[in-house]
């Protein structure tokens, strides 16, 4: 019985909790005088249930948040999007002029071609690490 239970625990991540799929993950480079960067990527949720992003961490930045740029009263403004939810089977695009990763205070200056890692924490307690390439 105990052995069966262990097997069940080992199989769970592979069946019920397929990994989220990340693609086209990049950071818009800026000169060192500017202490913020925006990160962009596409996230696909292959699971049969919704998943929310509860936290983002990185050793490469003092803080990482999801922000959304939108037009209000003739102005572009950015607001944090806490707990962004991705519906079952849905694909979310973080792209210029809309949703983006707000990367504050880079630990090192960024250069095109370099890679930065960010860990995403989901509402089920699972975590995934993402690699973003710095682009011109």
């Amino acid at each position, binding site marked *: 019985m105990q052995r069966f239970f262990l097997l069940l625990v080992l199989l769970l991540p592979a069946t019920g909790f397929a990994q989220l799929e990340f693609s086209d993950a990049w950071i818009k480079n800026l000169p060192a005088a500017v202490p913020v960067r*925006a990160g962009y990527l596409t996230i696909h949720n292959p699971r049969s249930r919704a998943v929310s992003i509860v936290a983002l961490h990185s050793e490469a930045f003092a803080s990482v948040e999801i*922000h959304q740029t939108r*037009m209000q009263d003739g102005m572009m403004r950015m607001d944090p999007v806490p707990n962004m939810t991705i519906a079952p089977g849905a694909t979310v695009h973080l792209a210029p002029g809309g949703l983006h990763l707000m990367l504050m205070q880079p630990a090192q200056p960024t250069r095109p071609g370099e890679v930065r890692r960010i860990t995403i924490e989901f509402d089920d307690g699972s975590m995934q690490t993402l690699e973003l390439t710095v682009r011109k």
Partner: protein
Amino acid sequence: MNKSSIAIVAVLALAGGFAMSWIISSGKPIELEAGTWFGDQARALPEYELLDHNNQTLSRASLHGKWNLIFFGYTHCPDICPSSLQTLSDMVAVIEDPDVADALRVYFVSVDPERDKPEVLASYVGYFNPAFTGATAQMDKLKPLTRSLGIAHGIRNRVEGNPVYDVDHSAAIVLVNPKGEYAGLFGAPHDAVAMARDMTRIVEHN
């Protein structure tokens, strides 16, 4: 066709030609793909004085003699400002006629003068294109200019002593003609190729 009707046709053709060239010289028939052309509604800017990234004065007279594209933003903006400046840089690269490219100037005016000192602006605009000019001024000097252009901006979530705050701003690109008049506007989202075609059309027609 008799002689008098030939004469009438000739006069009409001539008049039509004059009318056509008059319309073109007044800029009326220009239809922009990516923006709005004000035609004979173009109006003079108020007097203003900004400081550019080389610590030089940028005034109304500085814009004379060139077609000027002006974007208002702030360097701590990670998304809209870099995208817009990249688009302007791509637009310049796409323009094929060197005379058109030579007739254009691109300005980035910061609406966050507290953080955007000339040296910050210099490295920022230079990153996108060494020919671009960055400029700003204290709010009381900046506001009359942005107000006259209809460019909205404002500071939000400002806490005394905290260097992190938000700056909301219009993402439109203002066009000032070689006489220093407000001549057109490009609304967001910006398209480098469409803007390059528009600017080529404008410079070649004027």
